[in-house]
């Protein structure tokens, strides 16, 4: 059985494309008026007011071109997101993604391991607690980006939506803040894939996977133990109950 269902793999890569184009074209649109202050006004909280976004990360060529890309690609992003969420909900895959009661503690355990304070990789299921947090947050943050995007696309026609977000200006803040959060999540994700689990690329493309290559079995932290342990089949402590599995006293 593949580690990731084909719908998850397809929507993952379509998301890379759609989100990439949405962010690039969105920043190109922003460059037409690169700030948040109303004309004649000021804005407290953006240090680069009036400065253009560098051209390496923008896409669309010019304002109208970027708008065409943005308003075409948004439908792909929405359809793709709904397909993914529909799959995750209907097939129970959300069980691996929803944060658990012990996750704050387990995130701390992961951080201690990554920082070299603990020697052994904490026990985990399909994902570790940090991953669960990130993968769970991503769709909700994206939903906020899409919702606030619709609110600034149609501030009159969808007036109640725009008002619910605090009006056009606030909807614009939400749109950029949530986009920034998505960028941070995506960059963190890519960094961890490269530095801890490049083998996961295979499972996200073909679905193929073997326990031997899991970060847990490799005891992998960023740039350490990228290659599986010689002769190992699974995590050496996998048979012994870890402290995290002992039920807490009520």
């Amino acid at each position, binding site marked *: 059985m593949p580690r990731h269902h084909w719908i998850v793999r397809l929507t993952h890569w379509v998301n890379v*494309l759609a989100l*990439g*184009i949405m962010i*690039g074209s969105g920043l*190109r*649109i*922003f460059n*037409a*008026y690169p*700030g948040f202050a*109303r*004309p*004649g*006004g000021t804005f407290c909280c953006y240090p680069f007011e009036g400065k253009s976004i560098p*051209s*390496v*990360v*923008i*896409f*669309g*060529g*010019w*304002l*109208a*071109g970027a*708008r*065409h*890309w943005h*308003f*075409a690609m948004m*439908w792909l992003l929405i359809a793709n997101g709904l397909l993914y969420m529909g799959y995750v909900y209907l097939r129970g895959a959300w069980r691996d993604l929803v944060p658990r009661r012990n996750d704050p503690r387990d995130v701390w355990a992961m951080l201690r391991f990554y920082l070299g304070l603990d020697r052994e990789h904490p026990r985990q299921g399909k994902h570790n607690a940090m991953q669960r947090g990130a993968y769970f947050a991503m769709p909700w943050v994206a939903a906020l980006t899409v919702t606030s995007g619709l609110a*600034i696309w*149609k*501030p*009159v*026609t*969808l*007036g109640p939506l725009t008002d619910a977000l605090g*009006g*056009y*200006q606030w909807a*614009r803040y939400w749109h950029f803040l949530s986009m920034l959060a998505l960028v941070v999540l995506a960059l963190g994700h890519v960094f961890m894939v490269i530095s801890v689990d490049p083998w996961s690329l295979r499972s996200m493309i073909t679905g193929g996977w073997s326990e031997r290559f899991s970060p847990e079995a490799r005891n992998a932290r960023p740039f350490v133990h990228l290659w599986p342990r010689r002769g190992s089949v699974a995590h050496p402590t996998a048979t012994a109950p870890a402290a995290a599995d002992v039920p807490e006293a009520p």
Partner: protein
Amino acid sequence: MNVSRRDFLTAAGLSAASLALGACDSSGPKRAESLLMRAEAANRRVEGALFRHTSMDHAPKGAVASGDEFPSYFVSDVVPVWDTAAQGAWRLEVGGMVRTPLSLSLDDLMKLERRTQRVNHYCVEGWTAVAEWSGVPLRTVLDLAGVDRAAKVVDFESFDDDYHESWDLESALHPQTLVAYAKDGKLLTPAYGAPARIHSPVKLGYKNTKYLTRIRLITDPNGGYWTDRGYEWYGGN
């Protein structure tokens, strides 16, 4: 929208390739253009279907009017000013597919129903500015002329060089679409489109023709100054 599998795969492949090559403000693969145009046509239908005359814009509570900081632009070399000596008195013509073509002076306009509204001005660039506009609801003018049932589009012409923009009739009939002659309680100055202009929060700034001379009812979209340069024809909020 009819997108064949081949078109879709071509566009998907090309956009993936362009993404891989780095964004660098590329306008994307040429072959994706037809797909983008079809997406725009589909969006136009979605926007038209969502459009309601009961959806009203209002300036945010406590928002300060931009006053003289309200941005203005024109496409002529110098700010267009109606020259009464050379061109005769300014008049607004209403023609095309109407029962009674009209020719209205500024005084005529000011005698018609007046509406004053404090609304947003939405620029295509993403900024908004607040002003209080006064004028005649365009619907009042069009009712006076009697719009032919077959008319579907309104073209707004100006004396700012060849500037014009055409709109779907539904947006033109929205109660907040004005033939405006005053801003913030004062008659329009040349910077803001004197003697009269179209102003409506339901369309982006570039659709709001300034220096208005003629309102023409027609059957099909007739583009516009910015539309012909590649901006969305619908351009609605």
